């Protein structure tokens, strides 16, 4: 028998009703592998919230509290406080929300939790739009993307503002740990979770979770899309511990963003000019990240 690179135990059930090739479910699967059974999870309205299908089914093997869309972090804080009140200190508390539920409507609760430093793990699985309601723009939708509320039309009304940078925002909250991860790199993700899970305070993960339905690509390409996001540095892999940046995985050679964009229907309207702008922004962000990794080194204690 070969060697497994991530834990074998499955705490997510099959039979969930995610789309074919859904990246978000992989994020959940890996996370639970890293955390194990003594985990409680709270999920706001999003694709993952309805994975169980209908009453009385359940796609998870750990305690699960479905909560209102904008309350994930506050709910996780509430669970933690209840456990603390009861003296239970060996259970991980996770808030697991989509990018919309995290970066838009849930950002206030998350900001509050992080400011208080409540001892929870927050995972944002990022499919870059409101998918559960049918592909509307979110704050995390990248520049250039089509969605049903950035419908291109005759006015070229694709998303014009950059993707909201949640890791940076969380780092600004002075939390002990924030990191990116990708479903295309489960070992990296699992390792980061293992590293952070016992730190005190609020831990944040931004997990790149490709969505064939919303991004308009064929379901078998989910992992490939994740790999390209990494290789083009559209979505780099890094972690920030107490303000100190570390790139956890560098592409051997950076590929042009066009390689990533062209596989996805949501970008098919982009002209070369716009792709150039995107490339420029990706370059700048990547250089910024490297520079931060460099200069924050000396702030590591």
């Amino acid at each position: 028998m070969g060697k497994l690179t991530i834990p074998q135990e499955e705490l997510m059930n099959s039979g969930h009703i995610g789309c074919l090739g859904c990246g978000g479910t992989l994020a959940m699967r890996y996370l639970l592998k890293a955390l194990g059974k003594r985990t409680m999870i709270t999920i706001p309205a999003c694709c993952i919230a309805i994975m169980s299908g209908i009453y009385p089914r359940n796609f998870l093997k750990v305690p699960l509290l479905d909560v209102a869309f904008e309350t994930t972090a506050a709910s996780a804080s509430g669970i933690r406080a209840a456990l603390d009140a009861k003296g239970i200190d060996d259970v991980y508390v996770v808030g697991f929300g989509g990018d919309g539920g995290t970066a838009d409507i849930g950002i206030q609760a998350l900001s509050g939790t992080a400011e208080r430093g409540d001892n929870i793990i927050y995972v944002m699985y990022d499919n870059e739009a409101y998918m559960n309601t049918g592909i509307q723009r979110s704050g995390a939708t990248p520049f250039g993307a089509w969605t049903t509320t950035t419908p291109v039309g005759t006015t070229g009304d694709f998303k014009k503002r950059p993707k909201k940078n949640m890791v940076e925002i969380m780092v600004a909250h002075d939390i002990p740990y924030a990191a990116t991860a990708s479903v295309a790199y489960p070992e990296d993700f699992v390792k980061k979770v293992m590293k952070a899970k016992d730190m005190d305070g609020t831990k944040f993960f931004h997990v790149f979770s490709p969505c064939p339905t919303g991004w308009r690509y064929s379901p078998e390409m989910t992992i490939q899309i994740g790999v390209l996001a990494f290789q083009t540095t559209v979505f780099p892999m890094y972690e920030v511990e107490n303000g100190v940046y570390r790139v956890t995985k560098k592409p051997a050679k950076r590929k042009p963003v066009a390689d990533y964009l062209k596989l996805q229907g949501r970008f098919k309207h982009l002209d070369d000019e716009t792709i150039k702008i995107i490339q420029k922004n990706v370059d700048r962000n990547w250089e910024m990240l490297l520079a931060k990794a460099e200069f924050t080194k000396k702030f590591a204690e």
Partner: protein
Amino acid sequence: MPMDVMTGNSAQAYGAKLARAEVVAAYPITPQTTVVEKLADLVASGEMKAQFIKVESEHSAMAACIAASATGARAYTATAAHGLALMHEMLIWAAGSRLPIVMGNINRAMAPPWSVWADYQDSIAERDTGWMQFYCQSSQEVLDTVIQAYKVAENHDVLIPAMVMEDAFYLSHTFEPVDVPPQKDVDDFLPPYDPPVKLDVDNPVGLCALVPPDHYMEFRFKIAKAMEDSRKVIQEVDEEWEKKFGRSHGGLVERYRMEDADAAIIAAGTMSSTARVAIDNMRDKGKKVGLARLRVFRPFPYEEIRQIAKEVDSIGVLDRSYTFGHGGAFYTETAGALYQAPERPHVKNYVIGIGGRDIPPKDIEGILEKVLTKEDGGEVEWFGLRTSGSREVN
């Protein structure tokens, strides 16, 4: 500290403390602020063992209480007006989840225009959320009701959250004598919270599933049923309280000088306290008037109200709120309940004290006079409205 002098807000905080609330999540707002501050003090001094989550909004306060309660902890919060309104979605959530959270609400008028003074639009506008609603008339009642509310809410036939109301300033900031029962006695009265189901790693279940049309209605019916069943439990808990602590607050509807009354007013909160003075004055003049104090508005005490209708032939319903497009909620619901009653007294609505306008005994005497004489002129009167012409709407 048996008998002491304190504000209604301190009484709220001591109620939560004596009930041994385990998780408090709250956000400040005038005139609730001193509840939060008192709780912060009690926790910081070690007098109260609770986790206090200093949330960034009321929406998160209620979300955190819901999650804590679902994890098996006794949860408490307090708010007022805009804070309550901001929780609206979460109030429906708490009730739908059948979580026995108890919350203090300091009734304050809603903006705009900005006001910090007493009226009930805030809590009336939550009448459809599935929470029990208790309106208090004294600081003593506030303290006692917080504890009673947990006992009612956590009863397995009920499992419905409860709000304990105080009038802004008239109770919240008014210093008056309060008997603070010993912790031991309260512990005897109120056992630890023991929900039928909770989040538990050794017994993992999921809460708040997706339920299509084939079962949703049945689950909602169960809430309706639980709310109906709460009537009996509210009554019993108040009786048990009286046995143990020597005072009752009247169950759902408290009656004052209703014996042989010809006319009665229905009112709630501090104005019903003041109304006693008015009623005494009228009685002194030989006028047979009485008071039915709506201590509980949810569940709506229609049985008790129908009983009143049997006894008097004129009723004035006093509302410290107004539902634009119909009438005061106490009134429309009273009239609704009376429709099915065999007796048909004269009933009229008096909208009064909106936005903190003071309600002296003489105003209530004025109303009682009108009620006695069945003075007409429309269904609804805005009593005390400053006007040069007619006073009525509706």
